[in-house]
């Protein structure tokens, strides 16, 4: 079966800031508007990788209004993930903001993917980790690997897609007809 090969674009958040430290709702909204304009100019990109490299500090208000709100607005259509988080403190700030915003986000670290924001159930987290590890799965593949009912896995994958944690694509199945493939945001 052919892979879907989503198009990803990388954004270095520092390029949108005046300084290596950034804070506050007002600044977050201003940066989100700039990010939105850049994303709109690349309609082919379904995955938006936001790198925090070069940033020293952000507070929760900035995190909420900038990238988390952007991810919330794009969810279901395009996926946002975060890379290069410089410190545990910043990760904690983004996690606190994501919990409040109700927008989970995949963060890629040197130790692998982490999830910030509202915590899913253990089963859903196992399923998400499988998608992140394999890059893409169908419902049937995931159900087989995890030993779960197809209906159960289908519902969870649909929810992960709605929440912006995986992408869902229609592809032609080898047996004819259409099937959903769920893609990692990475």
């Amino acid at each position, binding site marked *: 079966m052919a892979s879907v090969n989503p198009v990803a674009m990388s954004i270095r958040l520092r390029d949108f800031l005046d300084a290596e*430290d*950034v804070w*506050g709702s007002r600044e977050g909204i201003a940066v989100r508007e700039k990010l939105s304009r850049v994303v709109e100019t690349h309609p082919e990109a379904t995955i938006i990788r936001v790198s925090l490299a070069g940033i020293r500090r952000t507070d929760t*208000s*900035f995190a*909420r209004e900038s990238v988390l709100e952007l991810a919330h607005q794009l969810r279901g259509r395009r996926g946002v993930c975060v890379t290069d988080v410089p410190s545990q403190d910043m990760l904690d700030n983004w996690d606190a*903001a994501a919990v409040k915003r109700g927008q989970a986000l995949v963060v890629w670290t040197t130790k692998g993917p982490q999830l910030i924001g509202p915590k899913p159930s253990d089963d859903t987290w196992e399923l998400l980790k499988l998608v992140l590890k394999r890059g893409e799965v169908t419902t049937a593949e995931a159900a087989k690997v995890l030993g779960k009912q197809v209906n159960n896995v289908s519902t969870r994958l649909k929810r992960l897609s709605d929440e912006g944690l995986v992408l869902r694509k229609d592809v032609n199945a080898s047996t004819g007809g259409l099937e959903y493939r769920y893609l990692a945001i990475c």
Partner: protein
Amino acid sequence: MVYRVDLPSGWIAGTRFELALGQRAGPLRSEESAVCFSVPADGAVMVDAGVRLLSLANQLDHIGKRVTLEFCHEDTSTYDYLNRIGFFDGLRPNVVVRPERPSYSAASRYQGANSRLVEIAPLCPSSLDMSLPTRLEKALVRSIRPGARRDLIGAAAFDLFSELVGNVYEHSSSQLTGFAVLQVYKNGNSARIAVSDSGDGLLETLRPSLPTYYPRLVGLGPTQLLMHAFRDGLSRHGKGHGAGLKRCADHAIKLGANLEVRLPVNSLRLIAKRGALRTADGAQVHQNMPLIWGTHIVFDFRLD
């Protein structure tokens, strides 16, 4: 008639300043058209009391009262200290200072020269100083030996200042200037952070949003509501917001800090204990206090 506030001798922190205001409703609600604050020669005003006095004097002037600050003619140490931290720079022009206003601002002259002190930073509603949290964090970190504790305190200081200063700009709804200040106490190896505004106060800002966003909290008293704001995060904008106060509480717990919140007629003192912020033992919750507009938050924590 003049409403007199005689500040005590010795160290004057926020709580002793409050006691000096007396048991009445306070100068803002008094019938007297003039208010005089008297600072004794040996009265050492700490930064949290300093910004509270500054805010109150400006509030009194704003509502049309004649305000006078009296300092001792002979011993000018307190006067000089307040000049050094920029107290008089933040004082509204109509407020009378005796014997006289300083002829120059020592804060402007020596800005940045003292690593243990950051001058009182004005939080003007019309202009946002984006560099302030970083400056305050770096001033604090310069006073601490390298190590994990320094990294922890640096990150916490940035977050505390950015969240609290951000709240002043976004929520205080006041035309009056707010203030932020940091003092490192070398002997005690401790630091004090204070952020004050002259707005409606945290709870008064939150309450109108409770029926819409947090109906279960409508009946809570000031102490419980304030505790809820720090433990779980609350915002007048609803459930997607309010992470900032919770993060401040998280940092207070990590630092083992004491936290004092002074609202228009209430105050609450919280201590970090067993992984949570708790009300301190004894009479640490005060209600029906003399009116001071705004939210005045003070963090105390050790540097070692």
